[in-house]
């Protein structure tokens, strides 16, 4: 029987009278890469926020590695990490300083070696003494990725990991994610609008609309089931359906 990394049971989030997420249920096996697709405002970020314990659900529960995030937030966050283009690292700190701070925050053993390893892997060595705010968006994205990998997370949540990146850097980042996922049993949840990225990286895709999962499965199965040519067409069909 497969081990479950993330289990979402009857999850609901209301902001005042608006339901952002409604009766959400899904399970993600350890070691799998899952894509979360849906239009803007469909509840992807709220779902990720609840998985990370940043947002308190109105009802339902988030179980990570068999433990409820509500009661075990600090312990579980030790094994998780998150990257989003909407959050940044302190701009006035150098790359090395930022990784040093976050490495210590996560209690990383042999931190110096880990930082060197990540700098090497993400081609950041030549900028290590540069302030993070002075970097290009592609370089900043790689630093954020280094920060997200600093604790070698068992569960990695990615919110539009390649948004605003040129195709070359985007491809580079996807390669890093692939390498990371193949290195041990890493569970990855990717919220993205880039269908090619999702098709390439994800074992399965969940389609979200108006706070609910309305379809899920392997990319090729979804394409077949909806009678379309590719995932983007499936996405458009689902989004435009009343």
């Amino acid at each position: 029987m497969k081990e479950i990394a993330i289990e979402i049971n009857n999850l609901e989030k209301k902001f005042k009278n608006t339901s952002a997420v409604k009766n959400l249920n899904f399970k993600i096996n350890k070691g799998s890469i899952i894509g979360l697709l849906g239009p803007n405002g469909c509840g992807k970020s709220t779902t990720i926020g609840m998985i990370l314990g940043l947002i308190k659900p109105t009802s339902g529960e988030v179980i990570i590695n068999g433990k409820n995030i509500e009661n075990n937030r600090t312990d579980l966050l030790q094994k998780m990490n998150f990257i989003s283009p909407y959050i940044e690292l302190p701009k006035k700190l150098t790359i090395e300083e930022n990784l040093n701070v976050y490495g210590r925050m996560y209690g990383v053993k042999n931190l110096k070696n880990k930082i060197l390893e990540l700098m090497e892997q993400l081609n950041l060595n030549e900028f290590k003494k540069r302030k993070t705010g002075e970097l290009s968006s592609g370089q900043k994205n790689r630093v954020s990725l280094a920060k997200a990998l600093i604790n070698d997370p068992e569960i990695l949540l990615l919110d539009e990991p390649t948004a605003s990146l040129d195709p070359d850097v985007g491809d580079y980042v996807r390669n890093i994610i692939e390498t990371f996922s193949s290195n041990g049993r890493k569970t990855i949840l990717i919220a993205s609008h880039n269908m090619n990225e999702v098709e390439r990286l994800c074992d399965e895709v969940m389609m979200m609309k108006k706070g609910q999962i309305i379809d899920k499965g392997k990319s090729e199965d979804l394409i077949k089931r909806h009678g379309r040519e590719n995932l983007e067409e499936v996405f458009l069909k689902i989004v435009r359906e009343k």
Partner: protein
Amino acid sequence: MKFYRIYALFLRHFFLIKSSLPRLLDLIYWPTIQIILWGFISKFFTMHSEFYNHTAGIILSAAILYDFLFRSSISFNMLFLEEIWSRNFTNLFIAPLKVSEIITSLTTTALLRTLIGIVPAIIFVSPFFGVSLLNLGPSLFLLLLSLYIFGMTLGLLVVAGLLRYGPAFENVAWSSLFLLAPLGCIYYPLSILPDWLQIIAKGLPLVYIFEEVRSILLDNSVNYYNIMKALMLNLFYFTLSVYTFYSAFSEARKKGTLINVGE
């Protein structure tokens, strides 16, 4: 609580201060200017006031202590505002940091920032205006401790507001201490206030601290009852502010404001 996590958050702000000379100078500049200004005002008062002419520097001592309070509170707020301005806020809350660790780290880091600003000013004041805080004797430590706890209390309340209402609460961060200053009786005795305001002012630890400062410098007598009263009030307000901070954190999680907070 884990020391390494508290240290990591401290390090984040230490790197920030150490790498920027303008930031460091800014920390020292304002307290020094403030104290020079009050130094001259104090000199003027001692020359023209019957009340103050026996004790040179009573106003200046009060100004230094008030600045210590002001800097500690503002330092605490600044540490949190830095996270909002740099859009690093969410990164902190997805790290395995406990709220108690955040409070502990900000409290100790704020002390460092305060000391960087205030120590040069205190050293400066002695040769130029002939005033030393050491004139307050051993009770100086308890008075400073009391002011520091009150500074942290205000800092925690403002930060709780930032968590609850977002960056729009920033203006309150800057004005919080000015609101309380008139009631704190920093430069004048409690008896100056109208009776009804005296009742409110007596609920603030500042009144007992600054009344005691004047009492020590004017009459050379220490009333430990007042000092203890200030400390007890401070502990009460500090506990209340910690509770408020936890409540604000919980409310922010309900409202979803811990995600994507920034300018």
